[in-house]
C-alpha cells in the first residue's frame, strides 16, 4: 500500500486551478495534446503522433516525475549548448547582476505583464531534485528552485481560451514551444536557483525552464520572454521550437 502523498493532493488542487487558467485540460479530446504543432511528412509523422499520443495518455493524470534525495545530487553537472550568450543586451544585464532583467509575459493572456527577478521570487516557489536526461545519453541530478510556470501565467491574469502554446525566447537566439499540458504541470518551473544557490551562468542565469518530462534540449536556458500563442506559425520555421526546426523531436518525452 502506498502512503497518501501530499504531493498528490496538492496536484489535484493544481489541476483544478490549471483548468481554470487554461480552460483546456477540461476538454480532454483536444487533439493538440496528442500531436506536435506541425506533424512531419510520411511515416516519421505517424511515429511522432503515436509516441506523443501514447505517452500523453499514460501521463493524463499529470503524475509527478521521480524526485531524488539531496545526497544524490551530481557534482560537476555538465554544461551543454550555449554557456554565455554573445548578446549585447544579455551581457549588459549580466554585468548588472540581472537587476534590470525583465520577463515580459504577453500574447494570449488576460493581463500582459512584465516580471523582474524579484517579482518571480515573490511568486510561490517550488524546489525539486530531478534527473536531467539529455537526448545524447547522459544524465545528471540537480536541485532546482523556481516559480511554477502556471503561477507566472496566473500573474498575467491567466490565458485566453484560444491559447494553446507557451513560447519561450532565450538570449542567444534559442526559442522553444510548450503546450498547455506541460505548461501547467506542477514541476514545470522557471528556475532561478540550482543546488541551493543562484542559477549559475553556464546553466542559464538568471532563469531557465525545467520541464521535467522532457529531454534536456527542452530545458531552455537564459529565458528572455514568454508569449502565449494559439499556433506556431511565423516563429522560426514554424515547427514549434529551434530543436524541431532542425528535425529533432518537438515532443521530447522520447
Amino acid at each position, binding site marked *: 500500500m502506498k502512503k497518501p502523498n501530499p504531493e498528490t493532493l496538492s496536484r489535484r488542487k493544481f489541476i483544478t486551478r490549471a483548468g481554470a487558467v487554461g480552460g483546456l485540460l477540461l476538454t480532454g479530446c483536444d487533439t493538440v495534446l496528442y500531436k506536435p504543432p506541425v506533424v512531419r511528412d510520411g511515416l516519421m509523422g505517424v511515429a511522432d503522433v503515436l509516441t506523443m499520443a501514447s505517452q500523453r495518455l499514460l501521463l493524463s493524470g499529470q*503524475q509527478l516525475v521521480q524526485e531524488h534525495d539531496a545526497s*544524490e545530487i551530481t557534482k560537476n553537472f555538465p554544461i551543454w549548448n550555449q554557456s554565455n550568450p554573445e548578446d549585447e543586451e544579455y551581457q549588459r544585464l549580466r554585468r548588472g547582476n540581472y537587476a534590470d532583467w525583465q520577463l515580459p509575459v504577453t500574447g494570449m493572456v488576460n493581463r500582459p505583464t512584465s516580471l523582474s527577478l524579484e517579482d518571480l521570487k515573490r511568486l510561490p516557489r517550488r524546489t525539486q531534485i530531478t*534527473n536531467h*536526461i539529455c537526448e*545524447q545519453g*547522459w*544524465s*545528471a541530478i540537480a536541485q532546482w528552485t523556481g516559480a511554477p510556470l502556471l503561477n507566472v501565467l496566473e500573474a498575467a491574469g491567466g490565458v485566453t481560451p484560444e491559447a494553446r502554446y507557451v513560447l519561450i525566447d532565450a538570449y542567444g537566439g534559442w526559442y522553444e514551444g510548450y503546450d498547455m499540458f506541460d505548461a501547467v504541470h506542477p514541476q514545470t518551473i522557471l528556475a532561478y536557483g540550482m543546488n541551493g544557490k543562484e542559477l549559475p551562468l553556464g546553466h542559464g542565469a538568471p532563469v531557465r525552464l525545467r520541464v521535467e518530462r522532457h529531454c534536456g534540449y527542452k530545458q531552455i536556458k537564459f529565458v528572455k520572454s514568454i508569449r502565449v500563442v494559439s499556433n506556431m506559425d511565423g516563429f522560426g520555421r514554424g515547427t514549434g521550437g529551434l530543436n524541431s526546426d532542425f528535425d529533432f523531436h518537438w515532443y521530447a*518525452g*522520447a
Partner: protein
Amino acid sequence: MLCFVYLLLSGLMIFLQFPELYWGKVGFQGYDAVFKLSDWGLSWEEADALGNRRWGRNYHYLFAWVFVINGLIYLGWNLWQKRFYSKMLPRREELSVKYLKADMKNHLRFRAPTGTAARQYGVLQKISYLLVLFVLFPFMIVSGFAQMPAFTAISPELIDLFGGRQSARTLHVICTVLLLLFVVVHLIEVLVAGAVNQVRSMITGRYVVLTESAEGD
C-alpha cells in the same frame, strides 16, 4: 530483419555520439564509465564524427513502432494458430541432457538435420527462438522505456528496477549485442541448412527434404 537492421544502425548512430556507458542513475563525460569506446581504439571525436543522432533518433523511434506493431501482429497470429505451442515449445523428451548434447554436437559440426527432422525446429533452435521472442525482445522494449524522460513520471518504479536510467542504457546495449549474436548464428545456420531451399520455403511454402541417401549421393 529490415527493422533489426534499421534499429541496430540508428541505435549505433546514437551511441557513437555518446560512446560511453555508465551504471546507476547518472553518467556523463568525465564520470566513472563501465565502458568507453576510446579504450577500444576509437576516440570520442572519431566516434562522434561517424555518428548522427538526429538521423538515428528519428529512425530509431520510427522503426521501434514498426517493430512493435509488426511484433504484435506476429504474436497475435501465432497465438491464434497455437504455433508457439506446437512448433516452439520443446517436447519433454527433447529437454533431456542426452538429447540436448546430441543437438549441440550436430550444431558444432555444422551437420544439418535430414528427413522429417529437417521440417521441425531443432530443440536448441526452439529454445533460442523462445528466448529472443519472450525475453530479449521485451527486454529491449522495456529498457528503452526506462531511458525516456516521460517514464520518470509514468513509471519511476520501472527505472528503479533497472537500477537507474544509465543502467537501463547499458543493459539495452548489452542486449543488442546478444541479439546481434543471435542473428549471426542464425544466418550461419541458414547457410548450413541450405539457404536457397530455406528462403524459397519461407516465400512459397515449397520445401525440399533431403533424405539420408540423397545427401550421400
